[in-house]
């Protein structure tokens, strides 16, 4: 999904940095609140609420139509990528 969005916005998908979080310590260190977490220029696509616990968990995203999903809305991702290229 991220690779496709990168291609669609004219970015190089090979520049994606993948970080595997496999224990609670690294989750806490990275501020990881669940999988998948996608950050564009270090900014979370849907920044977690203050105080949301870190840990190895599945992440709940809200799509633009209000539905719950394990993945972010593709348009949110494209929008974040476009903003990063302009900025």
């Amino acid at each position: 999904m991220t690779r496709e969005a990168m291609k669609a916005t004219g970015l190089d998908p090979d520049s994606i940095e993948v970080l595997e979080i496999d224990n609670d310590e690294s989750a806490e260190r990275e501020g990881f609140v669940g999988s998948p977490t996608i950050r564009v220029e270090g900014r979370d696509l849907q920044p977690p609420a203050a105080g949301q616990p870190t840990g190895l968990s599945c992440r709940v995203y809200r799509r633009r139509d209000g539905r719950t999903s394990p993945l972010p809305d593709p348009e949110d991702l494209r929008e974040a990528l476009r903003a990063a290229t302009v900025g």
Partner: protein
Amino acid sequence: MAIAIGERAPDFDLPATDGRRHALASGSPAATVVYWTCNHCPYALAWHERLIDVARDYAERRVRVLAINSNDSERYPADSFEAMRDRLEREGGWPNPYLFDESQEVAAEWGAERTPDVYVLDSELRLRYRGAPDADYDDPSQRAGWLRDALDAVLEGRDPERAETEPVGCTIKWR
């Protein structure tokens, strides 16, 4: 260990958010649906409305539906018994009981792997379908079609055309 198609499901007796205990071998339903779910998994949440719609739609046909949460609530407080009760209160109740398998023994005995993981039993509590509710968590129009197909077959005394599918969702969080 997992139960095989045609095998009688192991019994259980678990507490639920309604303040009662629910045993599998109770009453005389025409069919029983047992599904594993939880509060925090996005796949379980995505399929949730479709599953409780099945509970509502098949209640008149004497189908009993039981939801079970077996996740480790120490590492995942969002799946604690208290959080389950809070959720039910917030959502105004479900048509089916929401059971807590704190010891995780029921999930282990049944071989449940994911949330959701759906089991359809016939009137003799033999397993007739196990797997996902339908083909796509992201498509509400599928209306838990695989589960409905299996239930319709069992209620009509037929073998489900599709007896097993791959459960899709978060893994059960074991201790």
